[in-house]
């Protein structure tokens, strides 16, 4: 059953008679795909299959998992990312009563601050690239003639990267 397309890599025969090792590995992959379980670390084939599927048709995040992640993040930097409630979050209960003679009418719980009394920490500004010599971009001496365009390209590329990095720093991405 040779179906060799014109652009097939040389020396590769997908339908060659399998070795015993190949049969065992093929069977392990079949089982892993049928079970749809998290592959064991040694199951590289199955792990790669999962990665391909994740890229091709990624499923949405489980809403509960997302809620846990978001709640943990909002609860504060010290919270466990896996979803343990923040230790430092403070729950303030506000009670409303009509009079001393009446029973407590209602209570409202609200998270008013997640990180104690201190304001939210502000990340220190990241260092930015500054104007400087282009000499470090060139290790070798310039030839007597030619190469100007490639040197200008190299400088432009390096400075464009600096500019991008500076913008990301300014926007707080780094």
């Amino acid at each position, binding site marked *: 059953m040779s179906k060799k397309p014109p652009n097939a890599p040389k020396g590769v025969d997908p339908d060659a008679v399998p070795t015993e090792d190949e049969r065992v590995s093929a069977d392990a992959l079949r089982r892993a795909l049928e079970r749809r379980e998290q592959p064991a670390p040694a199951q590289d084939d199955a792990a790669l299959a999962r990665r391909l599927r994740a890229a091709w048709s990624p499923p949405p995040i489980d809403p509960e998992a997302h809620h846990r992640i978001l709640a943990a*993040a*909002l609860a504060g930097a010290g919270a466990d990312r896996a979803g343990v409630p923040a230790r430092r979050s403070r729950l303030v209960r506000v009670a409303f009563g009509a009079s001393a003679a009446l029973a407590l009418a209602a209570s409202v719980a609200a998270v008013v601050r997640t990180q104690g009394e201190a304001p*939210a*920490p502000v990340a220190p500004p990241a260092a930015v690239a500054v104007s400087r010599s282009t000499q470090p971009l060139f290790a070798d001496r310039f030839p007597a003639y030619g190469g100007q365009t490639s040197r200008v390209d190299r400088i432009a590329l390096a400075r464009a990267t600096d500019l991008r990095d500076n913008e990301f720093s300014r926007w*707080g991405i780094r």
Partner: protein
Amino acid sequence: MLLSHVSEPPARDETLEHERWLVERAQAGDREALGALLSRHGPVLYRSVLLPRLGSEAAAQDALSEVYARVIARIDRFVWQGVGFWPWLRTVGLHVALDQLRGRRRLVLWTEQDVTREIDGAAAATPADHAFLEQREQQDARARVEQVLARIHPRYAKAVRHRVLEELPREEAARLLDVTPATFDVVLHRAMRALRKALDDEAPDDV
């Protein structure tokens, strides 16, 4: 309850203006507004950016946690540029994904170089609705998969496409390759091995 008072847009606009309003409130310290922003964009970021690049739900969820932590710490430095919150969040997400990819050398469809290029291109953002953004991200992700598949024998690529990507039953995939199911298993295993080799060969070219 957490997001109750920001769930309704303030009347006149429900898209960019509302988002700008949320951003301003978030920058003023309103965690609920920040929660509303992240609730809106976070699941999209997870599905269309983090999960395809990182390849596992656990890694993508971990990355999403890190993205949220960075956003919360740095929201005051976000500068509104008229294109919404998404481009900034996506760039933060790409940086987090890049950090995770730096620790890996195998079995990744996106290399550090790929993600770095995406970060470079992230500045050219325009306002767009979520459906369009997701669709575009998915197209890019699928193009990346096709790019990898193009590096192996077409028959291997066909086996992967039918069984792994389209998730056809084993028997159906075997029928499409005109082989028995047992033979198909072997072809698929060889296809995955060839794919791993192609990805491994790509790794030394990384940054």
